């Protein structure tokens, strides 16, 4: 079953299109990673799903309903991001109690245990917390609510490495016990990819790719070796990224459709085929040119002469 269905949604802010005819679906009880560069439209998409924003055009269905201004959708979603508006007059403990009263699946015991584990003080105020502590508190709200649809936008902002690790583990453990639909946007794909089942990559407001993470892990291949040989090997393939290494070597990332025979042959002609990590691949896929930052400096190199 699809929990979220987006059909050709566009969201314009003035002349800029944050989302541009985006189509995507999210299936029930899966953890999906929402990946994209800054400004790719991740937060806008989450805000529209959560019903905080209305799309300029197109159709969005969450639990088969239009999310904007919809109480049913809202009661089944928890959306955590770094600009959550929590009441400034309430202490952290009071916020936990109040939030608990909004969500039918709220687990108070889990909330309290996490609260103590991360050494929060009951009488602290949210606005007095550091950036990392705010994110940690948001995480407690997000997990304890056990909402059918849980949205985390950059949940680890400001968290130190140890807390991030704890967060990933807590998320996974609670998900195993209580499966639900979770969307996680993050810049640290290498850290979260093992938690994910699906990955949804946005580029310039459009869906670039949506597939199981396991498939993405062998979706591409790095071909490295002497430039002419690499060119010959990659000219019939879909080139994702390419750069010169030293004077005569070349590194090209292509869509992986090499046969076992080709792999064997590659060794004999002195070419090295190696897998691409998912996070590198996403950087290549979402970059605006096939040469990355090197392209910016490339022209200068050519002019300079050797």
């Amino acid at each position, binding site marked *: 079953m699809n929990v979220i269905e987006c059909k050709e949604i566009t969201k314009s802010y003035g002349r800029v299109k944050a989302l541009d005819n985006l189509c995507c679906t999210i299936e029930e009880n*899966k953890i999906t990673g929402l990946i994209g560069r800054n400004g790719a439209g991740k937060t806008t998409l989450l805000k529209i799903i959560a019903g905080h924003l209305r799309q300029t055009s197109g159709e969005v269905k969450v639990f088969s309903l239009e999310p904007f201004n919809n109480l049913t959708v809202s009661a089944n979603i928890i959306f955590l991001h770094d600009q959550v508006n929590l009441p400034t007059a309430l202490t952290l403990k009071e916020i936990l109690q109040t939030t608990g009263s909004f969500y039918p699946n709220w687990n108070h015991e889990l909330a309290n245990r996490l609260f103590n584990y991360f050494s929060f003080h009951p009488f602290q105020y949210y606005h007095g917390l550091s950036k990392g502590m705010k994110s940690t508190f948001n995480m407690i709200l997000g997990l304890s609510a056990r909402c059918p649809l849980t949205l985390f936008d950059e949940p680890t902002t400001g968290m130190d490495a140890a807390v991030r690790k704890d967060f990933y583990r807590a998320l*996974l453990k609670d998900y*195993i016990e209580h499966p639900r639909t979770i969307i996680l946007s993050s810049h640290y794909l290498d850290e979260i990819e*093992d*938690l994910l*089942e699906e990955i949804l990559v946005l580029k310039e407001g459009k869906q670039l790719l949506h597939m199981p*993470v396991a498939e993405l*892990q062998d979706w591409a291949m790095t071909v490295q070796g002497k430039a002419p040989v690499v060119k010959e090997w990659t000219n019939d393939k879909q080139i994702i990224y390419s750069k010169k290494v030293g004077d005569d070597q070349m590194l090209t990332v292509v869509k992986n459709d090499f046969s076992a025979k080709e792999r064997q042959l590659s*060794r004999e002609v002195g070419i090295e085929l*190696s897998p691409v990590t998912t996070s590198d691949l996403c950087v290549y896929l979402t970059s605006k040119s096939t040469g990355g930052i090197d392209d910016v400096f490339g022209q200068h190199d050519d002019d300079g002469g050797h």
Partner: protein
Amino acid sequence: MVLNLDGSKPIYVQLAEWLENEILNGHFDSGQKIYSQYQLAEIFNINPATAAKGLNILAEENVLYKKRGLGMFVSDEAKSIILTKRRTQTLTGLVEELAAEARRLDVSKEELIEMIKGAMTGGTEE
């Protein structure tokens, strides 16, 4: 035991190899129930769907078999299947790499064979 999460191999492949090692070590005998996808997810901090994919690879190779509603079990032929596969695939690949590196370093065939002999008898110093 922690999987090598550097991305050199997909996690589900590493997981399948880890399970194969557990079977070769004798931690799981034929007919014995192996970890469920949820136990594996919990052990390695990975998505249960990824863990299921690792288990399914082994089921396709007949190392494991499914009992409806009960889980996955180690087959009678598990060990011999794993050994054959490792010999024909893994070892052959390693040998090819070894030969390529030897050529690059101008190590002669005889020298390489001597080195292998040395390594096999345990005399690995120098």
